[in-house]
């Protein structure tokens, strides 16, 4: 489904991603973990097409298409969804209007009929229940004045409405208390199907207790330095990121010897 090869990306003069290789197949959940500044959020944003990052080398293929050649909206229409670490406030645009515009944009791209506001209300009612969201939020401006937890839940509502094939969750767990974390994770799990894949970017292991990954990758210094199964997350939890970094520098020293 998604194949990343030798991906390098800069922000300004700084190189953040220094050669990423990652393959995500249909139905798989990949966790990307790593210390602050390792490049894991950058990876998520580059896949979604954030204009602040410049890709300098490598390729990203999604269903055989050159993803890097696609605009962010084309990526979304093709079934990629990024749940933002810091969801953006848009005062003056209601959630209902925004969600319906997005829903219809994606439907239109898929050659499906656009829905009117009444039909859309039915779609929404069901999706909002997934994350225990109060229907009154539909008439509020997108994320404006929302608490941190509400913003994260709103991202999952959008995820549910747009029904992507590849969901990328960028530190969706940050700023959530344990109850909110469970609600959000339950919502994500209910949306799982064998056809869909996800990349879960997180600093901490605790989200992975709820959203269980098939693979765990550890990012450090803009590279994937270790990959493994879900047990790798537990090892990280126990030993911390220093453990990986020490192992890396030991290996580096060894190769120079």
């Amino acid at each position, binding site marked *: 489904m998604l194949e990343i090869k030798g991906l390098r990306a800069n922000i300004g003069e700084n190189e953040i991603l220094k050669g990423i290789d990652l393959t995500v197949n249909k139905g798989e959940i990949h966790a990307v973990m790593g210390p602050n500044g390792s490049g894991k959020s950058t990876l998520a944003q580059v896949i*979604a*097409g*954030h*204009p*602040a990052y410049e890709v300098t080398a490598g390729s990203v293929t999604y269903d055989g298409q050159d993803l890097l050649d696609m*605009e*962010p*909206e084309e*990526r*979304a*229409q093709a079934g990629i*969804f*990024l749940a*933002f670490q810091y*969801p*953006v*406030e*848009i*005062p*003056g*645009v209601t959630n209902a209007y*925004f969600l319906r*515009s*997005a829903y219809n*944009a*994606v439907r239109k*791209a898929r050659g499906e009929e656009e829905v009117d506001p009444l039909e859309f209300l039915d779609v929404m009612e069901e999706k909002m229940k997934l994350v225990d969201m109060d229907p009154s939020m539909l008439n509020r*401006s997108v994320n404006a004045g929302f608490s941190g937890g509400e913003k994260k839940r709103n991202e999952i509502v*959008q995820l549910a409405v*747009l029904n992507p094939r590849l969901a990328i969750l960028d530190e969706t767990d940050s700023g959530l208390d344990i109850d909110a974390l469970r609600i959000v994770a339950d919502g994500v799990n209910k949306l799982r199907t064998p056809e869909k894949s996800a990349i879960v970017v997180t600093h901490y292991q605790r989200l992975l207790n709820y959203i269980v990954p098939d693979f765990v990758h550890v990012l450090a210094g803009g590279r994937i330095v270790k990959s493994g199964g879900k047990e790798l997350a537990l090892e990280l939890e126990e030993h911390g990121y220093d453990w990986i970094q020490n192992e890396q520098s030991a290996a580096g020293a060894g190769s120079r010897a």
Partner: protein
Amino acid sequence: MTQPETAVDHYVGMFESLDHAEAGGAGELRRRAMDRFAGLGFPTMKNEDWHYTSVAPIATRSFNRTGSPTSLSAGELDQYLFDSPDWTRLVFVDGWLAPELSSVHDHPGVQISDLSSMLREGGKVPQLGTIADHETVAFTALNTALMQDGAVITVAGNVEVAQPIHLVFLSAHPVPQAASFPRNLVVLEKGARATVIESYVGLRDESYLTVSVTEIALGEGARLEHIKVQNESAGAFHVATIQARQERDSDLHSFSYASGAELSRTNVNTLLDGSGSSCTMNGMYMVSGSQHVDHQTSIEHAQPNTTSREIYKGILDGHSHGVFNGKVYVRPEAQKTDGKQSNNNLLLSDHARVDTKPQLEIFADDVKCTHGATVGRLDEVALFYMKSRGLDAEQARTLLIYAFAADVLEEITVKPVKDALEAAVFARVRGGKLEMASD
């Protein structure tokens, strides 16, 4: 005066040629105003009130007051109106009432007449010229000297007029360099309530001038919703003054929308002259190309416990230039004044420019006054956020531009006007850029 003497002489000559019948019951007022205009001349940019706006394009042209209205059919109007058949509508063409296009619904306690016929019968119009300042303000003096026609509306005590009164000023001047001088007077007696909408629309692309003045007197506890919609032609020059005087516990809710004209200046001024009186002054301007749009507002808190709220928003593209000057005066006796003002501007081009100048002068010590001004661009992160949800670049920009304007448009309580202005925002934004109003 640095401008050529001929500019003022031109208007003095025009004044001298008014016939006696036309000067009517306001002959002395006109004469006094003309003298004042001759003394003041057109303002220059040295004048603090005109620091960011040059009226040279007006002063260097010789505009001629139109003597009679161009005849129009009702069908030519439809696209400019947002009223419904229940509304009273007075249509003025080139400054003169067009009775065949107007319809007045009788309402007990409400008098609606046109100024020209009131004056022509030699009649006096009480309060005319007593609210707006023709002694020191040049354009008000010019309007007062040459005023043609307009609405004189009086609502008796405790009468509530449910349907809006719509005053439509159409410029259809058959010759270039024409001018009109609309003049309105709105008097709401104690406890009266009404809604008055002024629309300014141009039907031709030629250069013309509109200089209008509206005087408003609000009695104790009266409430007026006043909306001005300025959609003049792209080649027009437009200078308008709305001047209100408010008695105790009265409330003025004002909205000024400006999107037309090559150069426009709108003054919205009120004197909170009674304890407990309040005003809301909102507005929006949306310009592109080489348009220049200027708003100057003045709120004078003259009595205790008075409240003012003000939000102006501007959207500017191309090489346009916006000006906002919001004055708030708090006199020494106006304790417990509560004032809030903000002016926010969205620039869609590197060449658009805004000068914003909040101006608070406070002479009382127990007051709560705040102000703030911003000038910004579309938020790139918000654009990416919307695109990442599948909205294309144009949709995302349009929605963000609309969102910027939405909260101030929300404040318009007359739904057909609110809907029309919202539609105007959407219609003018194409591909995330503002198009010229006349396109």
